[in-house]
């Protein structure tokens, strides 16, 4: 059976792309995760995960125009596919279900 749930890193990347929007590319995704989750990520690892997600049909990508500030290199923009949104939702539901009714994680009201 193919894997439908995401790893924490893949989930973070997927959510970062959704948060950034249509113009999500490597640097912005890394900055979004750093700013929101406080986790500094390696761009190479992020691209490996992005390739994996694209291979599974959870995201799609397109190549933009080369820009001089990037040494004439083009940007690769990422978009989350409907299947990716569904995978993120499935993962969220699975995590919330696991979270629920765990005594050690219940908030203590004094």
């Amino acid at each position, binding site marked *: 059976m193919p894997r439908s749930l995401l790893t924490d890193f893949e989930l973070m990347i997927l959510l970062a792309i959704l948060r950034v929007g249509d113009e999500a*590319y490597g*640097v912005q995704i890394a900055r979004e995760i750093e700013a929101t989750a406080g986790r500094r990520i390696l761009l*190479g690892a992020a691209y490996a995960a992005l390739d*994996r997600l694209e291979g599974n049909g959870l995201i799609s990508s397109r190549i933009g125009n080369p820009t001089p500030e990037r040494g004439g290199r083009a940007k690769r923009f990422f978009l989350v596919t409907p299947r990716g949104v569904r995978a993120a939702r499935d993962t969220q539901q699975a995590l919330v279900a696991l979270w629920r009714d765990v005594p050690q994680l219940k908030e203590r009201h004094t």
Partner: protein
Amino acid sequence: MTRPHAPCLASALLERFVPDSDPLLGDLIEDFERRPSRCWFWWQVLTAIVAARWSLDRREEIRPLRLVELQPVDAIERSRQRCLRFRAINLSASPLSGVGGLGLAALTFLVTIVSPGTWWVVLASSVAGLLIGVGIIAMHAKPPEALPTIRPDSLRAQ
């Protein structure tokens, strides 16, 4: 004030070892403008190479014990491409070409400076190796077999 450039060797290595690395390299260059640290750039490049190679190996792995329907649809094509990829290696595209020649030149220079007498040992070894080789060939060489000769008398008798 001039802006620091991203390390060229690191960029070349990334392009050599990571397939379709153009957007990643662009991202690294863009981020390098923000934090111009060569150590940071090198660290990013090395981890990117490791991550890409690992990811590539896992992606191209074909597991024969899996059920057929769980194989990727292009498994055979990928397998074929992989074989072709390892067969055809363009060494001229390598950023490390010339390192061997440079290394040999550096070694020669170093030996000449540090211990020039070593060259006599190298020369003597070469001559001795040559003599031994010739000796071995001479010992194992078979003498040419005598070809049958036709005498004019025998022709006349026929």
